[in-house]
């Protein structure tokens, strides 16, 4: 099911199968044509933006690029981005494991409703994912007066950024684990319990090793989206330089300040993060194709 929720997950299955001999198309004219056309689409639509990011970042040479990254506001944005991801991702991971455990190991009524609700954030516009927190916690929102009276800052501060990020990345880990754990069933855990192991020991010694790579995979995707999120955090940020601007927002600010090198330098950090994510993801898919594929095609 997760291939429907997250596109990248589906590719997990491919390397394992790709090992099979590949049928060759006999007509000689078509294959090169298809290859050329694919290469053109990939380079024109997907490769070019990536090239442009680095090209524009280095347009005036290395020193201005490095200077842009050493700006206090840029450093603050990097720190804030890391902080937000460091809170949002583990929370979503804990939720993902809990949800997957409950859904895969037990039968209860309303399970399909639960699955639907877990998927829901995928169909919400990021802007709406930010808006809902303003409606709840903005000074004019439902809890506004209470929060103001007690001097609790949520929107336009780190908690708001974290909440918006969590909502956007909510299903990633859960959707990765649920199908896998459903496919694995509960037999191994049942055996361990019968042999006298405790609940948490069983989870740690039996379940966790079975799901660790899929968990890592989900965390990876969740993290990539969390660090790169723009629409949702832009609504709740308040855009205070050096304080509530995450790296993607910092990119926007510099872009609007006509600081092209600065904007693309910050963007190149995020693009680098994207490339690292792709590399790690590919490595995971090669190394642990079987286990990941189980979750995706069971």
């Amino acid at each position, binding site marked *: 099911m997760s291939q429907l*929720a997250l596109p*990248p997950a589906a590719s997990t299955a491919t390397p394992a199968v790709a090992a099979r001999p590949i049928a060759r198309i006999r007509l000689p004219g078509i294959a090169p044509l298809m290859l050329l056309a694919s290469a053109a689409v990939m380079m024109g639509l997907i490769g070019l933006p990536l090239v442009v990011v680095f090209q524009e970042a280095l347009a005036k040479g290395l020193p201005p690029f490095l200077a842009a990254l050493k700006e206090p506001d840029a450093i603050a944005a990097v720190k804030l981005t890391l902080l937000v991801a460091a809170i949002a991702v583990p929370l979503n991971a804990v939720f993902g494991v809990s949800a997957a455990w409950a859904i895969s190991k037990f039968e209860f009524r309303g*399970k399909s409703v639960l699955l639907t609700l877990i998927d829901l954030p995928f169909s919400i516009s990021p802007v*709406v994912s930010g808006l809902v927190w303003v409606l709840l916690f903005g000074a004019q929102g439902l809890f506004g007066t209470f929060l103001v009276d007690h001097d609790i800052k949520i929107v336009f501060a780190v908690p708001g950024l974290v909440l918006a990020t969590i*909502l956007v990345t909510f299903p990633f880990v859960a959707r990765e684990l649920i199908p896998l754990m459903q496919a694995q069933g509960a037999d191994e855990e049942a055996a361990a*319990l019968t042999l006298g192991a405790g609940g948490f020991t069983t989870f740690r010694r039996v379940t966790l090793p079975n799901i660790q790579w899929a968990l890592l995979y989900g965390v990876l995707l969740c993290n990539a989206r969390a660090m790169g999120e723009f629409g949702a955090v*832009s609504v709740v940020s308040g855009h205070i330089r050096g304080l509530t601007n995450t790296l993607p927002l910092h*990119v926007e600010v510099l*872009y609007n300040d006509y600081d092209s090198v600065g904007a693309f330098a910050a963007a190149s950090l995020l693009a680098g993060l994207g490339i690292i994510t*792709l590399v790690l993801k590919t490595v995971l898919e090669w190394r642990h194709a079987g286990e990941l594929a189980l979750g995706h095609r069971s």
Partner: protein
Amino acid sequence: MTDRAAAATVVRPVTDAWPRRTRLVEHSILPGLGLSLGVTLVYLGVIVIIPLTMLALRPWELGLDGVVRTLTSPRVAAALRVSFGVSLAAALTNAPLGLLIAWTLTRYDFPGRRLMDAFVDLPFALPTAVAGIALTTIYAPAGPLGALAAKIGLKTAYSPLGIFIALTFIGLPFVVRSIQPVLQDLDRDVEEAAQTLGANDLQRIALVVIPALAPALLSGVSLAFARAVGEYGSVIFIAGNMPLKTEIAPLLIVIKLEQYDYAGAAAIGLAMLAISFGALAGMNAVQIFLARRGRA
């Protein structure tokens, strides 16, 4: 989303997740139901349900009349049309593009195939704001492709075409990744039979491959569509944001907020959610129909 869950069962008809029993909880010897379900429900409630309830309630302070008036005002109606129309066009364009790339990746072996495979996910891994400024630089009148398009009289950035390009970029991996596994597993016997019967490549693709792929293709297209409708970061830089022409619905939500119109902003958000659901459910019905016919 039930429709999405249903879509999944079409591609992969395993229904182990759907309880048929009437008892509230089936007995299990495994521990931790209370803890795990408790954590799940509390977290789900705080992060998803309460905020979305707020979204669903807030517009009605305008009254039904007010909500209808907001949504049918020319600017909002135009923004919804742009968002849904261009998203649909981009998702449909992703169908042949995605098919092309998935086909190349699964059927041919060539140097750099794995690299290409990995990079299909770039639009997903690249933060949307980064994609936005990069695409704008490329397609602005002074950019490399924008200048080229301008020569033949095409305006790319700051026109609906610019939005279309950004949304095509965003949606491509959804289509490729939806059809790739199916294409991988597509029964070669069927294809080979077609081949011995004298069908050429194009006929095989048209008569054998496409019908078998249709449900997965449709599901990929629906996902690309759903993602495109809500997309914000990559679009706002390239769109030009002209009211009634290139202003997308998510941006209008932000603008409504800036005008203190919280209820109006929530009304647009709710409408987008409702239309997305409707569109996905419709596509899903078609998909189920296709799958049934395929099996029969």
